[in-house]
Structures are given as structure tokens and as C-alpha cells.
């Protein structure tokens, strides 16, 4: 089954159209990357799929179900999002325990203490972090909490908006490993937005290159690894990547 299907998707912010006619099909269990520079519209697509950018036309379907323009609890249990900035994605006045329990409370799921403890272990966080506040955690630890929170409702699809861009290299490696492991363990589908091509090589199966709101190329990561992207713009991006 297709995990995410986008058909003729146009997204606007106010009067400006930022995404034009996007068509994409992401299979279940796949790890797909949207690559591009700032202003390419990649994050906007993610937000539209999540329900945070309601001004779109076309069709968005998640796990076979066409979605509406609002956030709905049924969709929330199927697709969740990890945000870019570990410093902005956690409420500064809530303990980690509260942050992780809240999705369960909202959706009426019991057994909260147990689930929180299990999730902390799954993302590699020690239990002594459970009642700390976000400012007492490092960037990498906060991002682990963000991933844990996204997984609390056991979604099948995870949207990741530049999850490691704000992190140090060594911490990025840890988070990338964690993401890879979780996907294997839980059979998740990833839609990853990034401007960092080596991360795509490590984490993804396929990628789409975006520019000015349009898809320029869709390719297998194998081609990326061999440096054999077809379109000129894609090759430009590749060339600009150091190392």
C-alpha cells in the first residue's frame, strides 16, 4: 500500500503559491527524502501532509485515506512529525514526562507510566531524564525526546523536518543511527526533508530534488551515491556538497 500519495498538490501561503503541482508516491516502509535549498517548498509539503499548512489544493492521501485540511485525531495516530529545532519543539515549562504523556492523555490511552518508560529506553534516554525540564537537556537529548514524542501514538509514518540540521556532527551521528534502528524495528515509513545529501545517502531509499516549489527529479539513492543524478540542478547541489 502507498504510505503517502500526493496528487497535483499546490500549496499557498496567503497570496503566494509556494508549491506547484507536486506528484509523489511513497510506498509503505520506504525512507524517502525531499531535498532542496531554503525556499524550495520541501518543509511546506511536510506541513501540509501533517495538517499544519491548510491552504492547499489537490489530493493528499495517507495510508490509503484521503485527508482533510484540518488536523484529525485519526490521522494523528497514523502520521506524526519531528521538527527541526530541538530548542523550540519542547514546551519550556513541561517536564519530559508531561511532554511524552500528553499525546496519550489527549487520545485516551492508558498505561502511561509504562509507555513513557518504554519509549525513553527505546530512544536511548536514561530514566533520570524523565522529570527534568528541557533546558536541562542537551540538543541531542531534546531531539531524542522529540522523536519519542512522535512515536508515542505509534504512527506508521514519520515526517522529519531537518531533524539533525541543528545538531553537532557527533550528535547527528547518534540521532541518525537511532532513526535507522527505529525504522527497522518498527517498520516505519519516513519522509525526510533535508538539504544535506550525505544524510540522504545514509538514511534513505529514494529522493526527490525540489526547486522553487517544483520537483526537479526523483531518483534512487543508489544513483546519488554514484554521483549520477540526471538533472543539471541536482548535479549542482551535488557539486556544492563538500566531502
Amino acid at each position, binding site marked *: 500500500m502507498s504510505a503517502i500519495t500526493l496528487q497535483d498538490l499546490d500549496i499557498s501561503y496567503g497570496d503566494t503559491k509556494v508549491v506547484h503541482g507536486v506528484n509523489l508516491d511513497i510506498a509503505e516502509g520506504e525512507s524517502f527524502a525531499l531535498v532542496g535549498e531554503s525556499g524550495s517548498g520541501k518543509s511546506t509539503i511536510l506541513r501540509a501532509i501533517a495538517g499544519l499548512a491548510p491552504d492547499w489544493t489537490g489530493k493528499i492521501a495517507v495510508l490509503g485515506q484521503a485527508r482533510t485540511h484540518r488536523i484529525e485525531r485519526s490521522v494523528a495516530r497514523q502520521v506524526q512529525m519531528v521538527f527541526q529545532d530541538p530548542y523550540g519543539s519542547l*514546551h519550556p515549562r513541561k517536564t519530559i514526562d508531561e511532554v511524552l504523556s500528553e499525546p496519550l492523555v489527549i487520545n485516551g490511552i492508558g498505561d502511561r507510566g509504562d509507555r513513557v518508560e518504554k519509549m525513553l529506553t527505546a530512544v536511548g534516554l536514561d530514566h533520570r531524564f524523565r522529570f*527534568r525540564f528541557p533546558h536541562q537537556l542537551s540538543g541531542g537529548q531534546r531531539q531524542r525526546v522529540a522523536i519519542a514524542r512522535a512515536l508515542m501514538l505509534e504512527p506508521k509514518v514519520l515526517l522529519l523536518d531537518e531533524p539533525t540540521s541543528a545538531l553537532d556532527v557527533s550528535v547527528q551521528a547518534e540521532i541518525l543511527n537511532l532513526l535507522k534502528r527505529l525504522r527497522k524495528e518498527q517498520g516505519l515509513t519516513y519522509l525526510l526533508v533535508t538539504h544535506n545529501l550525505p544524510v540522504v545517502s545514509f538514511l534513505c531509499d529514494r529522493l526527490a530534488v525540489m526547486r522553487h516549489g517544483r520537483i526537479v527529479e526523483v531518483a534512487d539513492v543508489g544513483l546519488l551515491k554514484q554521483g549520477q543524478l540526471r538533472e543539471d540542478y541536482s548535479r549542482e547541489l551535488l557539486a556544492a556538497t563538500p566531502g
Partner: protein
Amino acid sequence: MSTRNWLLADSPASRFQANAGRFYRVVTALMRNPLSLLGGLIVLVLIITAIFAPWIAPYSPTGQSLTQRLLPPSGEHWMGTDELGRDIYSRVIWGSQITLTIVALVALISAPLGLLVGAIAGYFGGWVDRILMGFTDIFLSMPKLILALAFVAALGPGINNAIIAIAITSWPAYARIARAETMTIRNAEFISAVRLSGAGPIRVIVQHILPLCTSSMIIRVTLDMAGVILTAAGLGFIGLGAQPPLPEWGAMISRGRTFILDQWWVATMPGFAIIIVSLGFCFLGDGLRDVLDPKSEGK
């Protein structure tokens, strides 16, 4: 484990411990600032005086004794007596109850009201925002004392109506603050995240946005206390606030006007009380502003 260690523990074992620790850190930071410590003490003294007035005051506040009128401060009457022979010191002490009641009730009515109106307007935007803010602006555009006067004149004099009148003029400023804060916060990613979990607007506003507005609200309310006290005193001065024989400080100053040249203590003593208490709230509010500043959040 000592209490202090429990409060400052690196890894709290429960939500209660975590929040208690945060509160403790705020209080200790506050106590490090000498001015805010002074302000806190003054407010504390006000509260204690108000609670224990019946036991602290040496004389009855309303007991008249026409042979003892207009006596200067002495060993027997620390602040002298007024034109009806009542001990001014006792009246000032009993008056603290009135002051505290006014201050507390105004805060309790106006702050939550303003917070809610502002947060709802800020969160929903659009026509909800425009209607609510238009309503707020109407109140904001009128001078506070005049509006309070008008209300009291319409509702009739008395301490309850004075409280309502002052509260009605205070809430618009809080609504504006709450709206501005909400508009900043609502774009934060942690708000998007909780909305994605399926949270409705009520939960988002009440549990996520309002807690972040409380710091600035507490600071603003504390600083406004001085103004509230002065407005209440002003109303009392004109005779529209607390009615005689209640020992409200403003009313006492008013009655002491006629004797101010020869028996200065009748008007000045309650005046000192007002100044000291207002200053106390100002110092405390300033100290709170330094401590609760979001930039030093969590230090």
C-alpha cells in the same frame, strides 16, 4: 536527604519535585536582590498585619473618644488620634485589611479575565481577534480614574463597587499583554507538535499558552498593585470608595485634610502607609521581572 538537596536535585523523581524545585530556585534568586527582598518583606508585613489586625491593634478602630481628639503621636497613641478621638495607628492597621482585600480582589478578577480574553484573541486571530480587541480598546481608551469614578457613581459608593470599578479598568492592559505573548508563542514548534497530537484549542490555550504568559502577567500585576492602591485611595479620598467609619487609608487622608497644618499626623500617617506598601509592590515586581525574565529561564 535534606530538603534543599531534594529541591535542587538534578534528576527529580516526580513532577511535583520538579516543579517545587523550579519554584525554590525562583524564590532564592529573588532573595538575592536586596530591593526585591525588601519589597517582599513589606508585602509580607502587609499580609500578616491584615490577618492579625484584631490582635495587633491596641485600640478599636471605630471607638470614638471625643476627649481624646487630635492628640499628637505619643507613647499611648503611636500615631496620634484623629478628629473623633480614634487611635490612628489602630485604624491604619485595620485599614491594611481593606487595602489587601482591594488589591487581592482586583488582581483575582482582572488578571484572569484579561489573560483569557487576550489569549483567545491572540490564538484565533481573524474576526475573533478583532471583536475582542475592539472591545478591549474601548475600555483602554478611557482614563482609568475617570472610568472608575463613573462606575462607582453609577453603582453607588462602597468598597465592593470600588473594587469592581477598578477591576474593570485594569483588565484591558492584561488582555493586550496576553494577546501579544500568545501571538508569539502560537507559532512555536511545541505548539504545532501538541496540535498534531490531536489537541483542541482549549487544551492548547489553557495548558500550553497560558502557563507561558503567567510570568509577564505576575510581573505586570505586581507592579500595578501600587496603582490600584492609589486609585482606591483616590476613590476613598473623594468619598466614593470605602464609606465611614471604615478605616480606608485614602478616606483617612481626605478627612485629615482640614487639619493638615496643625495636626499633620492625621493625614500623613495613612499617607506613609500607602507609600510604603506601594513601594513594596514596586520593588517586588521589579525583582520578579529580573528573576522571571524568559531569557534567564531556568537558571
